[in-house]
């Protein structure tokens, strides 16, 4: 069986590279370069991908891919999402319009999301409590999507692990549903 792949996507500065580094068993592969965009308050930014992996202990390895965040790298979002088991969307709640940010990613992945295991992780909710998690859920609900939304600090391995656990549980539930349907 092919090793499962989870894709971390989301806004610049939301912590995709950090999340993968927090979880990966090996030093992650990164493609960060110096940022020249004055509207982005960070020294370096991912322009290709991040890659890490986690040993699941049963001979399987979970592969973690991170996308660049900026819309101009949307082509990489699609390339990396091919054959993914799940999508983790990270949103930075300190950005000017986090709900719009979420909508951008929902637009980009609209063909995949209805059948894709997914979770939304919202960061910096302590400093920026608005919009609330319910408002994010409303954006998803308006599109007919039921996707868990959680507040996370991706610097904490436990938080990243929780996101991964959620999408793996979704994948398992989908497999069971499919098996039951096959037996009937």
């Amino acid at each position, binding site marked *: 069986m092919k090793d499962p792949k989870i894709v971390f996507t989301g806004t610049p500065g939301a912590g995709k590279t950090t999340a993968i580094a927090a979880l990966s068993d090996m030093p992650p*592969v*990164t*493609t*960060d*370069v*110096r*940022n*020249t*965009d004055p509207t982005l308050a960070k020294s370096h*930014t991912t*322009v*290709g*991908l991040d890659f890490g992996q986690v040993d699941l202990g049963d001979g399987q390895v979970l592969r973690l891919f991170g996308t*660049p965040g*900026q819309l*101009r*790298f949307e*082509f*990489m979002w699609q390339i990396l999402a091919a054959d993914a088991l799940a999508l983790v969307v990270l949103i930075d709640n300190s950005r000017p319009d986090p709900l719009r940010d979420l909508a951008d990613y929902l637009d980009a992945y609209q063909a995949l999301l209805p059948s894709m295991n997914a979770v939304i992780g919202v960061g910096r909710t302590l400093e920026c409590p608005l919009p609330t998690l319910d408002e994010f859920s409303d954006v998803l609900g308006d599109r007919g999507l039921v996707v868990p939304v959680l507040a996370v600090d991706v610097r904490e391995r436990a938080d990243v692990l929780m996101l991964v656990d959620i999408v793996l549980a979704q994948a398992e539930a989908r497999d069971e549903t499919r098996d039951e349907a096959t037996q009937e």
Partner: protein
Amino acid sequence: MTMNQDEMRRHAQQAANDLLCDVNGARAVLVATPDGFDLAHAGALPLDAGRLAAMVSSMAALGDAASREAAIGQPHCMVVDSSAGRLVMRSVQWRGEPLVVVLLTDTAALLGMVLNALNGVERSLGVA
């Protein structure tokens, strides 16, 4: 835009123009920042310059990561050799600032000539 960025764009545009003239079979040249912004371009690009700049920066960064992981040092060039032409990329420096130059050619262009011309860009930008 700062004076320095303005000057960088001017030199990048000159390099793009020169490269387009110097290489037989060259269709277009683009100079981008490593984080995917179009600084200058010349010739007939078959796609949006901003989109190509983003793609080129991703590919250059992936080449860099692959070289690093394979312990083969710093990459100089990447070549996408396709059925109807080539994309040849080279990382260069302008006053210590890293840039990526990409040359789009038809199949008539000789790879050795293209690589030599790209080396010349590095030299001309280096003294600009």
